[in-house]
């Protein structure tokens, strides 16, 4: 193996300058030994042609180990050796190195050797027996043209390297359609192999191509700088120039590319990045991985010849983004799968995780700030709304004079608005519970109000009450209070709240109306008494007549010489009795004439009817009406104002009499019947002409009368009175042909407790 070749073809710093022109023959050991070792730790030795620190070697070493990592460390011992013949050429060195390795690995039997690039393969072929007798030999990156003439045993196989320029020409054409070409190359045999490949590629198209060959490097550089713009520069390999100077091809390329007037395309990935625009290149990592996989299979016992390994080809489109930009080539034109280096990573690409993180943090902060701002604004709005609502509420409550209060039943503390405090005269208190709230209530009303409040508390219910407030200055104010009791979860009363309204004015109006009603009723009474005056005079005349008669009789007795004192006594007793009777008549009349507030008290309606009949006796006689009263045996308990009820009954009876007289009924009979049923019913039935159905409701209207001289007030007032008593007054169907006026009143409890 010519050492000169080794020196010139393996540049010191080229990490992928593995295609070498070594043709190595190695002694091949049987690989069968490997398979028999089974679980025993296996040993692999990888020999690199170049230096340990060459970046290309490091990439390949890493790629080879990738598939081997599958095996645990106890299964595989992996050793690497670096021949570095570029820097250390010479047969003596190689022999010594081989002897050294043989000695080094004598203890460990090497199961497989992998050689990277030509020099290492040639070395291993020559010294395999010394280093690892019988170990299978694998290679990668050895020029295929060099391997072609070798007869290798079947324990030697690998990944040869093919020189192929078609891909790079195709790439150049793709990126520069219709372009012409300039091909530059050196003068070493390897350089010429590449040039030969280009010549073959362009055979028949020589006109398109300018050849920058057999010149000094300076001439090439100058020519490249003057190329017409429709040209693309292609370089296969540049190991030496026409002056016989050898170069690290990389460095030669750098000089050419730096001043070239056109884009340049190359075939080695390491050259891309030194100024070349790009190229179709060998893929270093892929090659390493494939070599590692092959190594693994051999360790598993396969024979290298059987592995069917494919050659390495420069088919990876690889481009320098900076150069693409320099020459204005759009990345969109690149073939699929093209690898672009030196792509200026954008700030985003370089720091996307930082940016993302920062953006996330900012976003979070922004969200937080937004949330806080929103919350703040909402709070402000709510506060403003609350204030407004409060103001509105306050306006509404003060405008409507509504007092509000809330009482905490547990603490006894309460809140009340200004209106409430003013209405019930609370002052600045805010404690003392329900008792304090109810303290201003008029003593006459307080027991009832307390009972109502107590019931509401017990039932947890709403309440509604009217009472008077006695203010310190003696003013009395009517209050309408409504509210409710709120229960806690345990069902116990928690709060009591409500509104208070000043209804004094309302009450005053009510009282005015009541007074007017009473006035009217009184007027009607006086009027009907006026109508009855004759009868009533008769009622008084009778006892007066008897009294006068008796008195004069007594006087005459006394005038006698021997008065009959027993008789006189009897007479005087009669007088006393009669006088009292007359007094009662007057009493009744005075009651009817009196103008008093309505006083409801327990009554027996039978008594009322009897009194009325007494008062009307003379009238009935004068009207020639026979009255039958069927008052029943049971007390007809009601609650009412006796005078007003008498007025009603007088009205009914007088009306009945008038009706019968007016109709000239010969047999004037009147029946008053009391029936205790669901409530108290009192019917006044006459035998007059009756009331036509269409008049039955009208007669209760004001100013409607069936009597020619009637004012039409009586029945209207009667009905008002009866309604006031919670009863009803209607025309019912009479049993005979007459009219039946039916009065119904609610039955009072036997206890006789008067209702308010």
């Amino acid at each position, binding site marked *: 193996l010519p050492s000169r070749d080794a020196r010139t073809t393996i540049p010191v710093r080229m990490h992928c300058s593995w295609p070498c022109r070594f043709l190595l023959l190695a002694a091949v050991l049987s690989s069968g030994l490997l398979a028999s070792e089974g679980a025993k730790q296996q040993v692999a030795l990888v020999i690199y042609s170049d230096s340990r620190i060459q970046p290309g070697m490091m990439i390949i070493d890493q790629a080879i180990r990738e598939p081997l990592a599958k095996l645990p460390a106890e299964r595989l011992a992996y050793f690497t050796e670096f021949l570095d013949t570029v820097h250390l050429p010479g047969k003596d060195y190689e022999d010594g190195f081989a002897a050294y390795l043989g000695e080094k690995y004598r203890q460990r039997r090497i199961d497989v050797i992998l050689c990277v690039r030509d020099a290492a393969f040639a070395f291993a072929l020559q010294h395999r027996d010394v280093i690892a007798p019988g170990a299978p030999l694998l290679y990668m990156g050895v020029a295929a043209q060099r391997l072609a003439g070798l007869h290798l045993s079947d324990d030697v196989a690998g990944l040869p390297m093919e020189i192929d320029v078609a891909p790079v020409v195709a790439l150049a054409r793709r990126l520069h359609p219709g372009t012409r070409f300039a091909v530059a190359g050196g003068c070493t045999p390897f350089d010429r192999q590449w040039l030969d490949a280009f010549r073959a590629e362009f055979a028949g198209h020589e006109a398109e191509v300018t050849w920058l060959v057999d010149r000094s490097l300076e001439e090439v550089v100058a020519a490249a700088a003057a190329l017409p713009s429709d040209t693309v520069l292609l370089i296969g390999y540049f190991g030496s120039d026409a002056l016989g100077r050898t170069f690290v091809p990389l460095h030669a390329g750098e000089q050419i590319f730096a001043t070239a007037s056109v884009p340049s395309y190359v075939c080695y990935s390491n050259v891309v990045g030194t100024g070349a625009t790009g190229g179709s290149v060998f893929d270093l990592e892929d090659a390493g991985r494939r070599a590692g996989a092959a190594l693994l299979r051999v360790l598993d016992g396969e024979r290298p010849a059987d592995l069917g390994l494919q050659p390495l080809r420069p088919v990876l489109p690889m481009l320098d983004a900076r150069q693409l930009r320099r020459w204005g080539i759009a990345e969109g034109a690149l073939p699929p799968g093209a690898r672009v280096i030196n792509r200026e990573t954008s700030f985003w690409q370089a720091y996307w995780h930082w940016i993302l993180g920062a953006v996330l943090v900012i976003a979070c902060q922004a969200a937080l700030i937004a949330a806080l701002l929103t919350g703040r604004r909402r709070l402000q709005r709510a506060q403003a709304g609350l204030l407004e609502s409060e103001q509105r509420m306050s306006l509404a409550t003060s405008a409507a004079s509504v007092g509000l209060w809330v009482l905490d039943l547990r603490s006894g503390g309460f809140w009340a608005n200004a209106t409430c405090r003013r209405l019930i005269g609370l002052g600045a208190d805010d404690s003392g519970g329900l008792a304090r709230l109810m303290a201003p209530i008029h003593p006459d009303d307080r027991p009832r109000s307390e009972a109502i409040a107590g019931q509401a508390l017990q039932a947890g219910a709403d309440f509604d009450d009217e009472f008077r407030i006695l203010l310190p200055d003696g003013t009395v104010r009517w209050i309408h209070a409504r509210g409710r009791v709120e229960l806690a979860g345990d069902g116990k009363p928690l709060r009591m709240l409500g509104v208070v309204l000043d209804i004094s004015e309302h009450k005053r109006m009510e009282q005015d109306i009541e007074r007017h009603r009473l006035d009217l009723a009184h007027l009607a009474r006086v009027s009907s008494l006026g109508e009855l005056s004759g009868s009533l005079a008769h009622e008084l*005349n009778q006892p007066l007549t008897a009294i006068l008669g008796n008195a004069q009789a007594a006087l005459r007795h006394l005038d006698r010489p021997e008065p009959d004192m027993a008789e006189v006594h009897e007479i005087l007793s009669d007088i006393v009795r009669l006088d009292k009777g007359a007094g009662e008549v007057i009493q009744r009349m005075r009651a009817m004439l009196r103008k008093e507030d309505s006083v409801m008290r327990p009554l027996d309606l039978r008594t009322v009817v009897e009194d009325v009949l007494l008062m009307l006796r003379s009238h009935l006689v004068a009207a020639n009406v026979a009255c039958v009263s069927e008052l029943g045996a049971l007390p007809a308990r009601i609650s009412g104002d006796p005078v007003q009820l008498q007025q009603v009954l007088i009205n009914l009876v007088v009306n009945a009499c008038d009706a019968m007289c007016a109709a000239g009924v010969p047999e004037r009979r009147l029946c008053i019947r009391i029936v205790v049923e669901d409530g108290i019913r009192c019917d006044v039935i006459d035998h007059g002409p009756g009331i036509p159905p269409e008049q039955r409701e009208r007669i209760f209207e004001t100013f409607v009368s069936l009597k020619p001289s009637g004012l039409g007030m009586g029945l209207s007032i009667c009905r008002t009175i009866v309604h006031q008593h919670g009863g009803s007054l209607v025309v019912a169907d009479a049993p005979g042909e007459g009219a039946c006026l039916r009065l119904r009143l609610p039955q009072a409890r036997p206890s006789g407790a008067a209702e308010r």
Partner: protein
Amino acid sequence: MTATIHLVDDDADVRRALGRLLRLHGYRVVEHGSAADLLAAPHDGGPACLLLDLAMPGVGGLALQAVMRQAGDQRPIVFLTGEGDIASCAGAMKAGAVDYLTKPVDADALLDAVDRALSRAAADSANRHQVLAVEERLAELTGRERQVMELVVAGRPNKQIAHALGIAEKTVKIHRGRVMQKMAADSLADLVRMAGLAGVDPGRTPPA
């Protein structure tokens, strides 16, 4: 014979008081609670008067008066009333009431009225006896004598009577003599008085 006073009033107390007063003055008092009671009571024909309350349930005083007059009961009536209304007063007086007293009634006024009523009753009673006697005598007269008498008390002279009756004056004188005799008349004036008592209508007999 003691006079009877029928006291009719629906008010027992009034009856009791007035009854007391009247009895104290020696009257016999019969109390009735209603008109019906009075009508049902026996009528002994002795001197009596009625004290009637005007306003009573059922049949009132005025109605009772009418019923009695219709039945030929001529007992004098004094009305008592609570209310002195002119219409009922006038009606009562027209129907022959002795008096019309307003309650309460003074004892003297009451007794005075009762006295007057009773004297009228007494007068009525004497009068009725004379009338009965005259009517008995009248019944004895023949038709011609009755005719002659009617014309005589009418003041006709004999000649006119003869002419009116188509008989001779002489015959008239004979009839006239018999009439005076049968009627036991002392004079022509006496005959005229008797004719008045008996309600003989002078000159009623139409000319023949």
